[in-house]
Structures are given as C-alpha cells and as structure tokens.
C-alpha cells in the first residue's frame, strides 16, 4: 500500500554514477601523500605456538618501511573488547599463538602492495604446531585441545532459559519429535572486499580512519578502546559507495584497529585493501551451529512446547558483537507459531576457525533450519499434511500484537491470510499434482515449505540476554536502537539529507529523497542525500549502520520525522507571510500555499531560506528551519526482563515459502523447479527495491542451500580460498522466483514499513532442504539433510549408489586435501645401491624434485630447500626429512615436514626395497600426507595429482641416479610424460 504518495517506482538516484564508472568506492578515493601500503602475513596453521618471527630479510627489502608483529601492536594498543565476560584476550594480530588459518601474524608496510607482498614472503616464522579442534561438539569434550588456556576449556558460555511450562507440556504430550541438525559455515561474500585507510596525529593523539565499515557503530567504542583513545579521538568515516556487505563489512573492524596501530607506529598514513583469498579465509563467517530441537506435539499435530539445545561455534575468538548471532532471534525462537512453552540451552564454543560475525539473516538461517526441518518431521512422523501442520500452528489473525514465549512483541500480521493467499496464487495444488505425476514415473521430486517471521530493527539490548539477570543488573541496562537523520536547508532553500544507515546498494538515498520531496512538495531529484558517514560531524548512535534491515523501518522514519518538523516550521513562516493559519498551509510544485487559495503562494526556496537571510522576520517561537536532526527510538525496545524475556526486534514481517525440487537421477544435482515466496513486510516504500532485496537474498540463499561452504579439513586447513572453491551461484544456478505480497502495516514504525532484506536468507535454505528431504523420502525414508546439498552429499543419502568399477578407489566424501597413496617402481640397480643413494645428502639433492640443496643435519636428518608448484601456487618450501625404522638395505620410514610462505605440509611414507631376482629392485612405497595454508585453500583440487607427479619425478630421478632408465608403473610414467620429465 502506498503511503504519503511516495515515489514508489522512481528511478534510483544512485544509479547513474555507478553505471558510468563514477562510483566512489573505498579504493576509488585518493590517498594522502606518503601513504604506505600494507600486506599481512597470516598463519598457515590452525593451532600453533609462534616460537620465532624473523623479519630481517623483509625489512631489508627496498621500499619496505616497517615489518610489525603482535608485540609491536601491543606496545600501542589493546585487545578488542568481548561482549560477555570471559577471561580471554581477543587481539587483532597473534600474540605468541595462532588459533586459526589466516590469523594475522605480521604486517608489512611498503611503498606499494607488490613490494609489501614480496616482503611478506621473506618473513620467516617458526611454529610449534598444536592439535586443533574444528568440530563444535568435539571441542566440548574433556580431552579436546584448548584454544585459550586461561579458560581451561573451549566452552565460552552456557545459559539455560525456560518460558511457560515446558516440563508440563512435554509430560502431557502425545508425541515428542526430535531432530538434530548442523548448520554449516558460509558467507554472503560481497564483491568488494575490505578497505582501510588510517592516519594518526601525534599532536592531538587521534586517529582518522576511512573504511567501508557497515556498522553497527556500537563497534566504534570497541575500536576506540582497543586503540587506547577516547571516542572523540577516533574519527571513523565511510565512503559514499560500498560494494555490497550483507553484514560482512562489520568484520573489518579488527583491521581498523590493527592498521591504525601500524599508522601510529610508523607515523605514516596506512592503506590496506583485502584480497579475495584473505577475504574468504579470514574476514568473517556466519556461525556454524549444532542444534538438537525437540517438540511436544498433540495427536493432531499441534506443537505445545519446544526445547532447543544449541551449540554455537564462534571460531577462535569471541569477537564483538558475538554471541549476537545466537541471541538475535531469541524473541523469535518459536517462529510464526503460537507456542507458549519453551526451553533453551545456549552454549558458545570456540574452535580453530575464523571468528564469526554479521552475515545476512544473522541467526535466522540457523534457527529456521532446525525449526522448519522439525515441522516437516512432525508431519511425516504423525502422517499429516505439512501444510496443515504449519497452518494449524500459526499465530491466529486476531492475536496481534502477539507476545511470544520468550518476550518478543509481534507488531502486526495476518499469517493465515498470507498463507492461504500464497497457496492459491502460487498454485500449490498444481505443484502437488506435478510431484505426484513425477513420482509415478519414478522421478525424485519433492516439495518443501517454510513459514518464518523476519525480525527487523534490532534492540541493542538483546545481546545482554546472553548475561544472567544478575550480571545484567551489574553491567547496567541496555535497550533501544536510536536512528538519526539530519536535514539541512541552505541559503538558496535547497535541501541536503544526511542518513545514518551506511547503505551498500540498497537505494537508501532514493527512498530518503522521496520521503523528503513528498513532505516539501518538491521533486525527489532536487534533494541531495549523503550516505557517507563521518563520526566526527554527523549524528549517529551505537545503532547506526546497515544491519537488521533497519532502514525502511527506522532510518527512513527518522528522515520523515526530521522533514515533518521542518515542514511545520516552514508552514508557520509561510502562514505569517500569507496571513493564514499554519494548518491551512500546503506544499506542492515548489510552492508553499494556502490550501483554499492556491493563488496565494510563495516559492518554497524563499520561505525555507528565511532562517539564513532574515531570522528577524521569523514568527515568535519558531526556530530557523536551517537544520534539523531527528533522533528516534521505539519505546517498545525495552531491556531484557528479570525472567529473560526480550523484545529482540521492533518489527516482524511474515514469510511463507514453498518450492518443488527435482533430483537428477544421474548427476544427483538438486534443481529448484518452482519457488514461491510470500512476504508481508508492512508498507512498501519502493516496489523495485523490495523486489531487489527479495531476489538478492533468495539468490544468496540458493547458494547457501546447494553450493557454498567455508569448509575446513579435520586439521583446520581452510579449503575454500578461491571463488572456484567457494562456488557463488551464477545466473545459471538461480531458478525463477514467484514473489507475492500481502500487507499489514507496522503500527510501531513512522512509515508502517518493516524490514525485508534478510527474510529469504532465513527461509529459503530450509525450504529447499525440506523439498530435497521430501524428494528423498520415497527411496531413503527420513534423512537428516545437511547443507549445502551438493550432488555428492545427495548421492550419499540415496540407498543404491552403484559400486565403483573394479580397481577404482571410492572417492573421499566431501572436500578434503589429505593425501595418501601407494605404488611401485622398478629400478635396474641392486637394493644396496638404491639404499646408498637415499642416505647421501648430495645424491638426494639431485633426486628430490625442485631441490636447491640438501643439508645433512645428522645421519638420519636432512634439510632441503625445494621449489614446488601446485596448480596456480608455485612456492619455495623448507623441507625437513627424517629417516627411521632403518633396516638396511630393505626398508625405511621417511617423515617429512615442509613449510613456506605459501603453506605447510607434513607426511610420512614407508619405502621397501625388494630384489627383483635379475639384479634390479622393486621399490614399494606408501604415504600419508596433509597440507595446510594457502596451498590447501587454493590448490586443494589439484593436490592429489600434484603429489603423484612429484613422487613420479622422485623415482624417475632415483632410477637415473642408480644408472638405469626408470620403469615406473603406468600411471606415474604417464604423469612423467605429461610434465616432460624433469624441470
């Protein structure tokens, strides 16, 4: 429903500059003279003690200004504050120990980025590796490796909540249905990466930072505290344009702290632009979570209680604002359902993975994956239609405003109407017929449903629900969410608006211009809106920024309030000049006039500029209409109650999705055939932008459902370091989408709008998962599906996966870069000759592929410098080789450990030498190896082949040294052929 005659379809004011290459993104802006460029050396290990950092060679490189480490940072700055009381220190750069792959270890500052990266390769770090822990549930085990010794375990917090009478409801339940799910790590990965440009002024002891940070500005005090300055000595500015964020650019803040300290230490402006490998490996990730969810259910499928047990994996550090992902949905744990009884156990656990933070949907995808998978399971186990189970449990139309068990107030809605409208207009019946027909032909076709409540405008107090009531009382109450907007009228009566929402493409400037233009009867194109934020001069609060879909509901409302106040003052001035009453004044076509006599009109610009030119003529009691800042928070956003009730968000939109998915019988690819999404997001301020938000979130959710995962190997190696390994969907992967709307305006927001930006990131992954589970059901029964539903994973759920052909090993399931293999080579020399070669450092130097020199440290230990290429990554490694279990000249065990700027490797192999009876030797070998660091992140798919090639080269060289043409087995011979023998 249009409101206020907004220009709902107006073209975006943002677009023309962006379309013509005139955007003002971070890296498009000029840098001050003397700026030095940073490159960051990062840990290749998931868990290790740093025993030495040698920076001399890097410092000596021409063009390098400084090489700084954790020790240097600690000399001028402090750890980052943690949101809940924990005895851990969260540093933005490693202090003596690394806890995840990609953790910063050193920073090089140089004349340009190319030189800085050269110098990074010259830093020599020695590590003592420690056992890592990657799985959140294993991290809770008594014997798990501990990340933070000060804590004694990996458990960051353990809170229990109870609302209503869950014990009674479970005792009386006809059925108890339970589901255990894992939600994976993923990220909405903006195409523009992080950027920071920072300066230190030693005289005022202040920092001036430009960064594409997205807010929330509750992080500003965290940065200021880390840099040991008061808030007014940290000026944080954002560029006018930002290339997407989706929550992710909240996570730039540790780098703001780190690089600002570098600027202070070197007394130079410092600039850093994150590269894609850094972004994927170590920027920020959504949390992965293990959830066991139980429901008390009546015989008719009515849910009377829920019991959540959640283990939230926040990665290696609890980084602000975490554990917010776990608590953002705390008021919404029963979704769109009328469930009065609720029990919750929330645990936070640390593992050797990248710290987590904001990501579109923020807690919603995790909750709805558990809740909506459970609702489908209830229907299956009770033999009910999932449509009826969902509908019968919905909050009823007359119940609004509705208070949820855990304390949220759902502001408005008509869920049944939206639900029924979607079934009808989205042709649900036809979809069911299609499924039945497909199944009759033996095809794998399923239907999934999701209902969801999409919260928006987060209560800044919700995070304190993570504290006990006693801790909250001690820490002081937190609540509310201030939105700020400033409208300025200049001496010619033209208007500039400053917004606090830090947009990254959502079109906030267009909507703000439309709101202000409507209030003043002007053309939207005449209004200038500034989105670049400057904490040094703009109005802002901790709630400023672009998150929790707060713009339409809150920031836009503040714009309207400010415009309304100026309008009243201008109307009063016009009334005095026209000799009329202020309430009879109207605005239109650039004029201010008397409603009953439009001829009696004044130019808007003339009246509006009166404050500048003739303040003496203003009517008594009317302030000059030159600048108005509106600061608005909803009174409904109260602090958590004594009973842990929390109104975690202000607005609650409704979503109902359903889809049909078919699984390809040969490739096992899941193809979304038909997808309908129904939204009630209150008043729509701009139709095109609302559709854009829905389509964008949907596309990201399809990626999360079917393709994307920040995958780690068991040893903590990160496996998704390129956009080929982290497969963001292209146009070919995004199915058609039918979008439907109903509208119940929010009574709590100035414009009746609710957030709409995150809903499909919450609803779509589980909707597709439910459809896949339904498609699998006839063949496989109940399947606990896990995202992403890749073809390999779907194949693992199907019962009759054909056995691989004879002689072909079963491929390892899922991603992985552990290497193992075995083979034989035949060399025309006696075992003793071979043995002597293997024990001789000089001979080994000629045999090991890529070796520059081999040093014999002891009779059984060698050190080699080796250059190896794996796929796109060619680098130099220092390799330590040890020989053990020596049984001359029959067999030996070789253990190797390699390290270099591009990664690490560790492995062992057994070599046996057997006389072939005619003077030669059959060399048998088997090996197990694992690699980490960059080479694992970007070359994972190529490693197996590369290892076989290197081994082939080794035996070929060994054969040549032994004075005989090599006769390795077929595959190795072919590979030697491919690579042309030695290089």
């Amino acid at each position: 429903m249009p409101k206020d005659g907004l220009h709902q379809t107006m073209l975006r004011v943002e677009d023309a500059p962006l379309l013509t290459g005139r955007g003002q993104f971070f890296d498009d802006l000029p840098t001050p003279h003397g700026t030095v460029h940073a490159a960051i050396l990062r840990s290749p290990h998931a868990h290790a003690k740093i025993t030495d950092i040698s920076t001399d060679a890097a410092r000596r490189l021409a063009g390098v200004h400084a090489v700084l480490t954790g020790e240097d940072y600690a000399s001028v700055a402090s750890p980052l504050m943690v949101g809940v009381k924990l005895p851990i220190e969260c540093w933005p750069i490693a202090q003596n120990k690394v806890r995840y792959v990609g953790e910063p270890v050193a920073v090089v500052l140089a004349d340009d980025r190319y030189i800085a990266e050269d110098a990074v390769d010259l830093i020599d770090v020695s590590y003592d590796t420690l056992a890592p822990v990657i799985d959140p549930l294993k991290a809770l085990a008594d014997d798990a490796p501990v990340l933070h010794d000060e804590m004694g375990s990996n458990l960051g917090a353990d809170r229990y909540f109870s609302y209503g009478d869950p014990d009674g409801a479970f005792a009386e339940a006809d059925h108890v249905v339970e589901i255990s799910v894992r939600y994976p790590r993923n990220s909405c990965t903006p195409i523009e990466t992080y950027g920071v440009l920072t300066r230190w002024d030693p005289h005022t002891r202040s920092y001036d930072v430009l960064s594409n940070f997205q807010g929330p500005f509750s992080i500003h005090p965290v940065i200021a505290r880390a840099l040991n300055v008061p808030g007014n000595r940290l000026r944080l500015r954002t560029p006018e344009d930002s290339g997407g964020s989706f929550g992710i650019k909240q996570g730039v803040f540790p780098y703001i702290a780190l690089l600002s300290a570098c600027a202070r230490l070197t007394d130079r402006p410092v600039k850093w632009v994150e590269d894609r490998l850094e972004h994927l490996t170590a920027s920020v990730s959504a949390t992965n979570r293990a959830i066991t969810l139980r429901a008390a259910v009546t015989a008719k499928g009515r849910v009377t209680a829920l019991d959540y047990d959640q283990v939230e994996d926040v990665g290696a550090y609890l980084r602000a604002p975490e554990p917010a992902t776990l608590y953002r949905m705390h008021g919404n744990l029963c979704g769109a359902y009328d469930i009065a009884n609720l029990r919750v156990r929330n645990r936070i656990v640390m593992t050797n993975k990248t710290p987590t933070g904001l990501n579109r949907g923020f807690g919603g995808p995790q909750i709805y994956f558990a809740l909506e998978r459970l609702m489908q399971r209830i229907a299956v186990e009770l033999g009910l239609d999932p449509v009826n189970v969902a509908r019968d449990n919905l909050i009823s139309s007359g119940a609004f405003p509705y208070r949820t068990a855990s304390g949220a107030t759902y502001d408005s809605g008509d869920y049944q109407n939206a639900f029924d409208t979607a079934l009808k207009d989205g042709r649900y019946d036809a979809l069911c017929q299609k499924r039945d027909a497909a199944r009759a032909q033996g095809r794998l076709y399923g239907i999934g449903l999701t209902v969801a409540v999409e919260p928006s405008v987060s209560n800044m107090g919700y995070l304190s629900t993570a504290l006990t009531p006693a801790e909250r009382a001690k820490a002081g109450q937190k609540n509310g969410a201030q939105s700020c907007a400033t409208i300025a009228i200049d001496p010619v009566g033209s208007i500039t608006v400053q917004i606090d929402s830090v947009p990254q493409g959502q079109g906030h400037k267009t909507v703000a211009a439309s709101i202000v233009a409507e209030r003043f009867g002007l053309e939207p194109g005449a209004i200038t809106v500034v989105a670049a934020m400057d904490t040094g001069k703009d109005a802002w609060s901790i709630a400023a920024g672009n998150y929790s879909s707060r713009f339409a509901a809150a920031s836009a409302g503040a714009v309207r309030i400010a415009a309304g106040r100026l309008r009243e003052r201008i109307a009063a001035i016009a009334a005095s000049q026209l000799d009329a009453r202020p309430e009879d004044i109207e605005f239109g076509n650039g004029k201010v006039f008397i409603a009953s006599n439009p001829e009696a009109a004044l130019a808007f610009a003339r009246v509006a500029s009166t404050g500048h030119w003739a303040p003496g003529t203003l009517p008594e009691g009317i302030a000059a209409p030159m600048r108005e800042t509106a600061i608005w928070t909803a009174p409904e956003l109260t602090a958590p109650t004594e009973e842990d009730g929390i109104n975690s968000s202000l607005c609650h939109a409704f979503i109902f999705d359903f889809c049909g998915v078919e699984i390809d019988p040969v490739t096992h690819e899941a193809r979304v055939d038909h997808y309908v999404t129904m939204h009630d997001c209150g008043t729509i301020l701009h139709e095109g932008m609302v559709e854009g938000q829905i389509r964008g979130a949907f596309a990201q959710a399809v990626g999360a459902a079917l393709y994307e995962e920040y995958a780690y190997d068991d040893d903590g190696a990160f496996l998704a370091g390129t956009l080929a390994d982290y497969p963001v969907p292209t146009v070919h992967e995004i199915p058609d989408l039918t979008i439907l709307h109903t509208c119940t305006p929010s009574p709590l927001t100035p414009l009746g709008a609710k957030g709409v930006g995150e809903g499909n990131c919450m609803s779509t992954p589980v909707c597709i998962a439910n459809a896949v589970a339904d498609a699998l059901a006839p063949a496989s029964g109940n399947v606990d599906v896990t995202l992403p539903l890749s073809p390999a994973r779907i194949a693992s759920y199907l019962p009759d996966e054909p056995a691989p052909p004879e002689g072909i090993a079963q491929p390892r399931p899922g991603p992985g870069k552990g290497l193992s293999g075995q083979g034989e080579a035949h060399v025309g020399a006696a075992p003793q000759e071979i043995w002597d070669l293997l024990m001789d450092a000089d001979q080994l130097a000629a045999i090991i592929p890529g070796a520059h020199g081999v040093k014999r440290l002891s009779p059984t230990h060698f050190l080699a410098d080796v250059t190896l290429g794996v796929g796109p990554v060619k680098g130099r490694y220092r390799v330590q080789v040890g020989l053990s279990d020596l049984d001359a000249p029959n067999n030996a065990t070789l253990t190797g450990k390699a390290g270099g700027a591009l990664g690490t490797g560790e492995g062992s192999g057994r070599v046996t030498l057997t006389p072939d009876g005619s003077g030669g030797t059959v060399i048998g070998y088997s090996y197990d190896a694992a690699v980490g660091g960059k080479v694992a992140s970007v070359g994972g798919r190529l490693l197996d082949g590369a290892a076989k090639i290197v081994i082939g080269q080794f035996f070929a060289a060994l054969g040549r040294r032994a004075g005989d043409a090599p006769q390795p087995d077929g595959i190795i011979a072919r590979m030697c052929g491919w690579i042309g023998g030695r290089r």
Partner: protein
Amino acid sequence: MRRLTATERHPVRFTLNGKPAEGTAHPRMLLSDFLRGVQGATGTHVGCEHGVCGACTVRIDGAMARSCLTFAVQIEGAEIDTVEALAPAPARLSVLQDAFRKHHALQCGFCTPGILMSLDTLLATESQADAERIRDVLSGHLCRCTGYQPIVAAALDAAQTLREETDNA
C-alpha cells in the same frame, strides 16, 4: 614480443577509450592495477584477482578480457575500452545503462562495470542475442545483490531498443 626486465618500469602506449594514453609499468603489474592506479580510470573494479568474478572485465581490441589476468605491458599498442566509455555524453546513459537503471539491474554497482562491458560487447556483435545467449555471457560474472533476473531483463530490453533503433535508422 618485447623482452622486459623484471626490476624496471617499461613504457606502455595504448588507446584508452578512444584517446591515446601512456604510462609505465613493471612487467608484473596487472592491467587492472594499471588502469586504476596509474591511469586513474577507477570505473573498472577488482573483485577476486583470479578471473572468476568478472568485475574487472574490459574490452581489449574489441574482445572481452579480465584485466586482473592481463599484465599492463601486454596492452602495448592495443585499444582498451572501459565502463567510462559507454555513455554517449557525460550527462547521458547508453541504451544498456539506461535499461539497467529502469530494471533495477544493479544495487551496490560494484560488479556492474564488468557486466556492462560484457553485455555491451555482446549486443554490439550479436544484435539478435536472446535470453539464453545473454545468460550465457552473464554467467561469466558474479553479482551478489540482484539475483541476476533484473540484469537479464535489462539486457533483453536494451537489445530490443537497439534493434528498433537500427530498424528506424
């Protein structure tokens, strides 16, 4: 081919958006960095530096190319077109750019310059390009904001307009 010394800057003379241009670059400098940092043509964006996202796409001698996978010294003597050249005049938009605005085919606009370069090249060379062909070309680009559908709609609309303009000419 020229033999270049790794440690020295080498002159690069080329045509940028129809005008003669020159600068110097070390042999390892990427064309994307050269265009943005040396030439000041910041409309071309860098999203991944490994050739997947397509944000850095430019036209080299009439063909689409990833500027992040091209060295600056390779463009000696070449004609380079970037997003800055697409509009017919400073305050106007091309047919394709205008269609993007009309169909909300961009949000943050960071990937947009590369997509415009590819689709502009397509429409210039294949006036009959249909939805399937447009999707084929678009699949060389990643966009995280729009879900792609509005981009396809904009390209189809622009193709239609361009055909009508040609028919009426």
